[in-house]
């Protein structure tokens, strides 16, 4: 069952990425293989068992709702004391300014990824699946700085896999970069697009690279996740393009292939009037959720809550995956939980630094994955 997919979308014409080299599973000759690996539970238990075990042990140290409740009420210093009860506390000890908090949290997240890399099998790209986001982010920042000639803002140097220096050189000389990034830079530099267009190019590469990684990992769950996020990106692009009244060609360029809803379908919908579009979109696999996401009962589908609601959808997906005891799902859900934890704590602490009222903070927070 695993690795049976042929790539429907050409992931990237070149080789995957240099880090992946030398990681290929050494395969037994066919006549010696008893393909129990093809049975999903067996295969996944062997592959992720160790990581899941380590995660189960760590899960007790996640931030629990009772922590969050207390955190909302506490002042900054108290909040640090409460956070001492979980792992994050060690990193945050002594932080007093926004910058220090940020640094501490980045350190923490970095260590979470390190932990993951240690725990996962050597040939797993699940780790890259999380990391590539930061690399694309950094690349985006650098390219933007180059196109606009402004300063580099909000770089996340420690979280990516690729050193920022390498990326910076790569922006000048794309051939130095490893594969998915090389193509991004080449494409952006060739077309010399406007900054927002450059952003869509990078996002498209990002989503497709993740899809590629999901296929490589051979996990149905990751695949579903990647394709769903592509769908949401496309839907968002659709709504925005309609609001701005963009040309069909321009719109077409911002679509990403590989989602569950075919790109042609979205293009077809694009020209239709409002109600027809909504009806057609309801026939997709997101029918039940789509109305809710697009703002039910309102005259026009609104973009305002789109991000948050599509996030909720993905969170629901993750929550359902908690029932799977061993596999890629718990690993994924764990990292997401840790990432959410960091976002939440950051938001909380910043709010504390700005002396926001507890009620205001409560509204801002999202549900953590452990309930």
């Amino acid at each position, binding site marked *: 069952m695993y690795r049976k997919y042929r790539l429907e979308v050409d992931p990237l014409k070149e080789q995957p990425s240099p880090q992946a080299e030398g990681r290929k599973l050494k395969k037994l000759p066919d006549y010696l293989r008893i393909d129990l690996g093809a049975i999903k539970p067996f295969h996944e*238990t*062997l592959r992720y*068992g*160790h990581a899941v*075990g380590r995660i189960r*042990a760590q899960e007790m140290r996640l931030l629990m709702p009772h922590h969050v409740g207390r955190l909302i009420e506490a002042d900054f210093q108290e909040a640090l004391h409460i956070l001492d009860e979980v792992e994050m506390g060690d990193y945050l000890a002594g932080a007093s300014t926004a910058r220090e908090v940020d640094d501490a949290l980045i350190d923490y997240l970095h260590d979470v990824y390190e932990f993951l890399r240690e*725990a996962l099998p050597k040939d797993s790209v699940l780790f890259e699946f999380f990391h590539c986001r930061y690399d694309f982010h950094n690349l985006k920042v650098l390219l933007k700085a180059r196109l606009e000639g402004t300063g580099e803002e909000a770089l996340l140097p420690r979280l990516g896999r690729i050193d920022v220096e390498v990326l910076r050189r790569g922006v000048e000389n794309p051939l130095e970069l490893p594969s998915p990034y090389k193509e991004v830079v080449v494409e952006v530099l060739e077309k010399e697009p406007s900054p927002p267009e450059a952003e869509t190019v990078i996002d498209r590469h990002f989503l497709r690279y993740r899809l590629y990684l999901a296929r490589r990992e051979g996990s149905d769950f990751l695949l579903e996740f990647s394709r769903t996020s592509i769908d949401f990106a496309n839907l968002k692009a659709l709504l925005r393009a309609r609001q701005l009244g963009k040309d069909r060609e321009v719109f077409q360029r911002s679509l990403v292939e590989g989602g569950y809803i075919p790109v042609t379908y979205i293009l077809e919908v694009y020209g239709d009037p409002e109600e027809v579009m909504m009806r057609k979109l309801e026939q997709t696999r997101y029918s039940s959720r789509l109305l809710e996401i697009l703002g039910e009962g309102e005259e026009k589908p609104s973009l305002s809550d789109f991000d948050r609601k599509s996030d909720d959808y993905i969170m629901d997906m993750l929550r359902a995956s908690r029932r799977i*005891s*061993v596999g890629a799902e718990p690993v994924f859900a764990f990292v997401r939980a840790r990432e959410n934890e960091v976002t939440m704590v950051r938001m909380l602490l910043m709010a504390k630094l700005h002396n926001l009222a507890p009620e205001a903070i409560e509204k801002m927070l999202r549900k953590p994955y452990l309930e």
Partner: protein
Amino acid sequence: MEAATFGGLSGLHWALLGAALAVIGGGSGSSMGITYVANVAGGILTDMPDRFGPLLPLVVIPGTQGIYGFITGVLVAFVMKPSSGWEALPGWVGFQIFLACLPVCFVCFVSGAYQGLTSAGAAGMVAKRREEMGRALVLPALVETYAVLSLIITILYFFVVIRPFYSTLGI
């Protein structure tokens, strides 16, 4: 000597084939099962070395299938041996022994592996709460029921169905 072979194999051949299959099935099922749990347990122990005690029973519990296979092998070798030596065993009785071994062979293989998966899930429970160990241990034991039943059936075939032929044949 025509009755002495069945399908070209002598009684001893058939009996050994059955015994070997039972041992192979049970043993491979168990070793797979234990690998699965041990993999998860190893991960838990990396961060919680103090959980070794509660995890150990979960790790060894898929091992019983191997033992059932082993018992079947032993029964064939020691108990089903005719008192006048293996040469006296006709091929068709040997074939019966072979058939009687099959339940253990297949059921123990599959249930051993799957019990490993169940235990692997249950190990996560123990990591979260040490007190859950009792409950975590009962879940994989449900899987084992069928391995036990297959062993019972194999034994029943040996002693209730096949052994009576021995006295009629006078071996």
